[in-house]
């Protein structure tokens, strides 16, 4: 629901921007690296935390992560805060975040030490 609203808002915003400044370039988005580092506060630096709640994201298959974000956005996947955060981002953002984490070295199992 929230995702839908957001999409409409963006469309309107883009239309208005086009009206005001036709030459305006496509909206610049935050990089996957920056967004992913904010994920790291709960999921660990580089996505390498191992605990009872938040899954480590380092080395995750990017499609899996993108699909999880879509499911959170659509409120079809249970969780705590993720369904409230996912609507802030576009599917291209999800992909960029997923590529950042896919490139990180996965945490060994069992973890050598908790991070």
């Amino acid at each position: 629901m929230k995702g839908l609203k957001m999409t409409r808002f963006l469309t309107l915003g883009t239309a208005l921007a086009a009206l005001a400044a036709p030459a305006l370039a496509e909206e610049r988005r935050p990089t996957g690296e920056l967004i992913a580092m904010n994920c790291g506060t709960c999921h660990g630096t580089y996505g390498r935390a191992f605990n009872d709640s938040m899954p480590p994201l380092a080395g995750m298959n990017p499609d899996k992560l993108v699909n999880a974000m879509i499911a959170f956005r659509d409120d079809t996947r249970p969780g705590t805060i993720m369904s409230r955060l996912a609507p802030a981002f576009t599917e291209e953002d999800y992909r960029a975040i997923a590529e950042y984490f896919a490139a990180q070295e996965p945490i060994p199992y069992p973890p050598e030490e908790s991070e």
Partner: protein
Amino acid sequence: MTRISRRNLIAGALAGSASLSAPMLWAQGAAHRVVILGGGIGGATAAKYIRMINPEAEVTIIERDRTYYTCPRSNDVITGVLDLDTITFDLSSHRNNYGVKTIYDEVVGVDFDAHLVRTADGSDVPYDRLIVSPGVDLMIDQVEGHSHQAAETVMPHGWKAGPQTMNLRRQFLNLRPGGTVVIVAPPNPFRCPPGPYERASMMADHFRHHNPTAKVIILDPKNKFTKQGPFTKGWERLYGYGTENALLEWVPEEQGGGVISVDPETMSVETAAGTFKGDLVNVIPPMQAGRLAKALGLTNETNWCPVDQATFASTLAPDVHVIGDSCIAGAMPKSGYAANSQAKMLAHVIRSELQGQPLPVPSFANACYSLVAEDYGVSIAAIYAVNEEGKIVSTAGGVSAIDDKPNRPVLEAVYQKNWHRTFAADVFS
């Protein structure tokens, strides 16, 4: 502690390198020097992430204290659930793993023209970019009848973790059977918006098991607070909130909860709703930007630090950035998560400047789990962007849903505990 004048400083190799208004250019070929004042959550995160994404930068933290106690989970220490060790951290990993230099000393002044920080031992530390992250200052003098002496003894604040936390813990765990705790909540804006309400909750949780005729009363100069819906639902479910025998009471401003004065002699608090006597009185004073920020002239008439919200560049001094609780950051709360997120953004800003790249598009996050009881959590979370007016605004977010799913608060309590571990590691490991 004042803005030191240039002529008081030794004019050496750095003389002539200053520029008042235009940002100072990074010295060609030389190491890029970032100096950070304050090794708390904002400063420590900034140091680590600048070195992670920008290893050619030379990073120095100047910090007064050798240990840091996180405010997150300090309420658990007060109620005896955790020991102080669990929330104690230091900067050794910054030195050993990230090559950050640490100087343990007081800052006595900064020469913004010469780009020098002077410390109490007389050293001058040069910088190209200065990051100021001094947290909050508690305005004890603003509370009628209160004093610094009373705040260190009978009416502690427990709003900077460490000895204050242990003072509150001693008093709390020795509360007489049937005793009363009075919490004086601060006005907006303040560090850790859910903190007073989580603290009262955890005290009520302790009473439920150990002191069932005791009570905690929150006296509030406000009529609403963060996560109010999920908090009050939890209070109703667990503590008989709103009934005669409630373990927890909240007196908002409209019911006379605003405090007129306190009296440490009689352990009483005067409000429009009458006099409240407490066996334990926890006065959380109004707050302003950390003293260092104020002494350096980085605050405006609001007593907080104005910054460009896309870069955290101070609007009052060149080549200085202010992050964390001290800065004015639009819709973001004064939380540890927010400080951590601002620090990461700033690491990207500094890298862009260093490499002559366009400034990054900002993105910030905040997530905060609070305990209503040891096994009952509530949360708030949001993502932020910077709008066309240059203000930080929330683009998505919300608080815990209030519903009949019994697993939701249990799950959020589990997340709260794990969050603190990963959060502290992201800052300090």
